[in-house]
């Protein structure tokens, strides 16, 4: 590496034969049917956010019912179930998964590893359009006869396809399953792209151990998704057959309304195994990108190299692998051999080890850092708090004997909202505040950002912290109303009303955020190429926002890891990854 400009002279670049960029000729192929990963990422993000808003509104409706039972008679019990189901499914799959992998994955992977685009832009484009179709099918179920399915986001059979469940014998469940299958097909097209791009299309000098943790998180999550979604796909196929052709994969012999149904010999437990073989990794498909992104946010905004980078990488990989052998901790009450319960409790608790390592490393990165309390940093800190909080209650639920009484109570709802609802959403917010300047060239408004942060953070706590207590009282989840019971004190109703008011306030705070996104697009402070003085490659593009092809004539060459902050002796407190060693002191 003798000269600054001619790296590794004389060696043919590996990327030459493969790179043939598609050059769009019309407005339509440039912005609508775009094959540019950045545009696709933005399309994914906008679609996911829109459908996410639907889920947010549904949560308001549910909270109205729970907080003020009997007041809103336009919410019937059947509708309440439909709201729960759609809220859960949209949040987990169509918002979080699509936003982290389809949105951030598309935008950030090529930029962060120094590629011009994803390896197969055409398949990448299809991926988005199939995702959009999946979302439309899902939305269609709101308007179908009988409405959307009310089976709960876990869609457990037999109830999911029986007439007692809303949408069970109507269109609801059919459209839900069809939409999920479409989502998986679309995701696979994108997912293959992300994995191959990371493995095979990195810039010169970008070794695996020089990749930003964001890329590691998204990459591992995508691999997991490619292996976990098949189980959901297969169970969707089989349930669709049960529903449409009257097969009995999941349906035992049963009597409904005094009538013996035409099913026999199927295994409802089989569905639960398949579902959770997908469902548990799904939690980490959402969490690992969040882990990665939050590491980068913390390091950048604390001007401190990430503590224990290798450990962080291995923790991500190990968590990803372990999460395939813990699925049955969701089934402690389903009827299992106690030895299985023991096995799955053990594996579940083992995951706490790499997870705890990550948390310690974040804290040690912050330790004596030069912490800038920017909005992204605030959200990153909020993530750590909520995630640890949710992780601790996870330790309760991972143990069989503790889980059995707590299972299907509001305690579980509080737990998973903390750990996989609120925490990843905070990372998404932080990430948007962090990368918006790169995407648009303008900063988001800081004052609005802070308002958004404090209301969301405190509000989320005020919603979900009391919910643990309500759950400990024994209030079950998925109940339209609990009415008069011997064991729930009347004060729980007051608490519920309080939670609901908080939920409305937090929801309203998101309007500030949306307004900020739109307002800053034109009025925001111009950001320049690298407003946070960050080291990673996406901040070193010749133009901001980066054009098609990202890098202009020459691809970047990487000389160092992504966390050279506050290096002693360096002229600035950061050294970009593409700075050659000779120039580091400049």
């Amino acid at each position, binding site marked *: 590496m003798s000269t600054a400009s001619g790296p590794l002279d004389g060696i043919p670049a590996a990327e030459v034969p493969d790179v043939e960029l598609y050059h769009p000729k019309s407005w339509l192929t440039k912005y609508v049917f775009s094959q540019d990963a950045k545009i696709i990422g933005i399309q994914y993000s906008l679609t996911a956010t829109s459908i996410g808003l639907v889920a947010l509104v549904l949560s308001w409706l549910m909270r109205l019912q729970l907080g003020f039972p009997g007041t809103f008679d336009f919410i019937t019990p059947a509708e309440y179930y439909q709201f729960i189901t759609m809220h859960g499914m949209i949040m987990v799959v169509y918002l979080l998964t699509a936003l982290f992998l389809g949105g951030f994955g598309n935008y950030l992977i090529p930029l962060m590893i120094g590629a011009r685009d994803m390896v197969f832009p055409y398949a990448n484009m299809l991926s988005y359009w199939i995702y959009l179709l999946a979302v439309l099918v899902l939305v269609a179920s709101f308007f179908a006869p009988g409405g959307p399915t009310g089976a709960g986001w876990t869609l457990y059979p037999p109830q999911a396809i029986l007439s007692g469940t809303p949408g069970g014998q109507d269109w609801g469940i059919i459209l839900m399953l069809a939409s999920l299958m479409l989502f998986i097909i679309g995701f696979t097209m994108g997912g293959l792209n992300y994995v191959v791009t990371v493995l095979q*299309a990195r810039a010169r000098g970008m070794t695996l151990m020089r990749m930003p943790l964001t890329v590691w998180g998204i990459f591992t999550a995508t691999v997991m998704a490619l292996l976990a979604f098949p189980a959901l796909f297969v169970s969707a196929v089989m349930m669709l057959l049960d529903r449409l052709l009257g097969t009995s994969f999941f349906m035992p012999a049963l009597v409904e309304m005094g009538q013996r149904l035409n099913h026999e010999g199927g295994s409802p437990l089989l569905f639960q195994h398949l579902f959770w073989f997908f469902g548990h990794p799904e939690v980490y498909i959402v969490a690992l990108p969040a882990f990665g992104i939050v590491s980068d946010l913390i390091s950048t905004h604390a001007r401190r190299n990430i503590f224990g980078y290798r450990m962080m990488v291995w923790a991500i990989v190990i968590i990803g692998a372990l999460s395939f052998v813990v699925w049955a901790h969701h089934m402690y009450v389903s009827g299992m051999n106690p030895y299985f319960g023991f096995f799955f409790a053990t594996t579940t608790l083992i995951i706490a080890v790499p997870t705890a390592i990550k948390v310690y490393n974040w804290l040690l990165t912050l330790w004596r850092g030069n912490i800038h309390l920017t909005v992204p940093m605030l959200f990153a800190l909020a993530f750590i708090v909520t995630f640890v909080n949710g992780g601790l209650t996870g330790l309760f639920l991972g143990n069989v004997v503790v889980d059995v009484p707590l299972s299907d109570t509001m305690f579980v709802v509080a737990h998973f909202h903390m750990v996989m609802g609120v925490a990843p959403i905070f990372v998404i917010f932080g990430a948007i505040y962090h990368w918006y300047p790169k995407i648009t060239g303008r900063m988001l408004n800081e004052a609005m950002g802070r308002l958004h942060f404090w209301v969301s953070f405190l509000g989320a706590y005020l919603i979900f912290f009391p919910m643990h207590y309500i759950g400990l009282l024994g209030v079950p989840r998925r109940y339209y109303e609990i009415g008069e019971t011997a064991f729930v004190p009347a004060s729980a109703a007051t608490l519920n009303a309080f939670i609901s008011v908080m939920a409305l306030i937090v929801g309203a705070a998101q309007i500030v955020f949306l307004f900020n996104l739109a307002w800053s697009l034109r009025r925001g402070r111009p950001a320049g190429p690298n407003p946070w003085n960050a080291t990673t490659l996406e901040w070193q593009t010749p133009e901001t926002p980066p054009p098609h092809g990202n890098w202009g004539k020459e691809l970047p060459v990487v000389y160092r890891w992504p966390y050279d902050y506050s290096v002693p002796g360096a002229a600035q407190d950061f050294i970009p990854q593409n700075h050659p060693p000779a120039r580091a002191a400049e």
Partner: protein
Amino acid sequence: MEGIAQAQAPATMEPAGGMQGFVADWSSDQRAFKNVSWGKAMMWIFLLSDTFIFGCFLLSYMTVRMSTTVPWPNPSEVFALEIAGQHLPLILIAIMTFVLITSSGTMAMAVNCGYRRDRARTAALLLVTALFGAAFVGMQAFEWTKLIHEGVRPWGNPWGAEQFGSAFFMITGFHGTHVTIGVIFLLIVARKVWRGDYDTGRPGFFTSRKGRYEIVEITGLYWHFVDLVWVFIFALFYLW
């Protein structure tokens, strides 16, 4: 490609051998798999994902076969044919399996000819492979028709557990779809080879990218995979 990995290491150091060298190569810059093109890498990873799909199908089939309380029909009787007065158990399945495995052979030959730039022979062998594939699907259609005539439905059959029909139609249907897609791809690639697209660098219709003869091999990967899956279906569904 190797050059890059070595140029990374300081000049005085011997390139590490053994496990260490493996890890060093793997985690070095640009590519994890040094001689693997993007397309091939993508196909391998797709097949891994698809393995999970078929794995889930087969495991589910085995689960319902055990959970059902009604006896399972005897596959060697169900899939027997009367040919010239002879009662031959599983004969059609045996022929189908043979045809499919043969097609893997012709596929391998096509790959070989492709890398030797032998356009005519590559195209011909691809066509033959597609023909075998189509024959397989045809025989499967025959088998489906026969069973349907005998009263087998996804929701029931005359001989026992209804999951027999459900699993049969679902798994062979899903596999047959894979074969059909494979046949279509083979025909497309055969046409492109024949026309000389991979020599002239003609851009693809959808992707506007130049193809290379490697695409024959990538299609082959898919084809062999579909064959391999069939072997498992054969063993677990028909022979069990």
